[in-house]
């Protein structure tokens, strides 16, 4: 283990220099989501671990343990504060800001999500399986390719207020659960109007 005085403290100034640009520039630049500007250390993927056939030395293991792993900008805390360009639109501060984020639940997840995370963690930790064992190895190679290509990242369940960009998904969910052709917000306000009218 490193002695305590040899540990490199995280240099705040260096981190600030690598901080992403101001949010307005980031949101309007087309390559904002493709180039994560928030890098604190080297990135390790499952492919790196698998392709590394030699046994890592203790020094490497220590370096890996004390080096923070890079978080993609879209999943980082900064993205929730400053917004980012997503696949379905621009997510700004108001969609994940302090005003709307009601609760962040890391404890409760469906069993299949927990199983999925366990599988990914298993392959990430184990690194590789038997390289030359015929049929099984091809399956394992496919699993490796799948996991490397998707690079799964665990997340929590966020409880937020209804936003405009939720509406399509909310309509789909309500149509699935209740009946097709349901217009959630329209019915919602009609019911509201009827009730208030009768109560008056």
């Amino acid at each position, binding site marked *: 283990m490193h002695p305590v005085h040899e540990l490199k403290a995280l240099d705040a100034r260096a981190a600030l220099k690598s901080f992403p640009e101001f949010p307005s520039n980031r949101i309007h630049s087309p390559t904002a989501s493709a180039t994560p500007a928030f890098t604190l250390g080297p990135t390790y993927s499952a492919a790196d671990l698998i392709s590394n056939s030699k046994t890592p030395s203790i020094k490497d293991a220590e370096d890996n343990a004390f080096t923070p792993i890079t978080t993609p900008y879209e999943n980082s805390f900064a993205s929730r504060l400053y917004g980012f360009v997503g696949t379905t639109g621009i997510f700004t501060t108001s969609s994940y800001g302090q005003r709307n984020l009601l609760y962040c639940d890391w404890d409760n997840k469906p069993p299949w999500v927990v199983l999925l995370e366990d599988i990914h963690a298993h392959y990430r930790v184990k690194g590789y399986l038997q390289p030359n064992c015929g049929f099984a190895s091809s399956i394992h190679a496919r699993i490796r390719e799948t996991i490397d290509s998707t690079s799964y990242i665990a997340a929590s369940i966020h409880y937020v207020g209804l936003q405009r960009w939720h509406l399509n998904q909310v309509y789909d969910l309500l149509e699935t659960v209740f009946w097709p052709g349901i217009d959630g917000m329209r019915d*919602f306000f009609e019911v509201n109007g009827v*009730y208030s009218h009768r109560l008056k």
Partner: protein
Amino acid sequence: MTAALDDFPETYTVVAMYKRLVVGVAIISPPPDEAYITYLAVKSGWENSGIAQYVCFRGIVSALYVR
């Protein structure tokens, strides 16, 4: 509808999200005298995670607080 969405308090309409996926929603209308749960839905495959419980709780608390 957009104006209504802007004017309406966000705490009455609670949405549960996993990453960018909406997994649960509760829409609670606060009439003057009593609150009314208009819609409460959870995506299939996400049951038994306390989503509807918290979503409902949050909306009801908001309605009680306003009264």
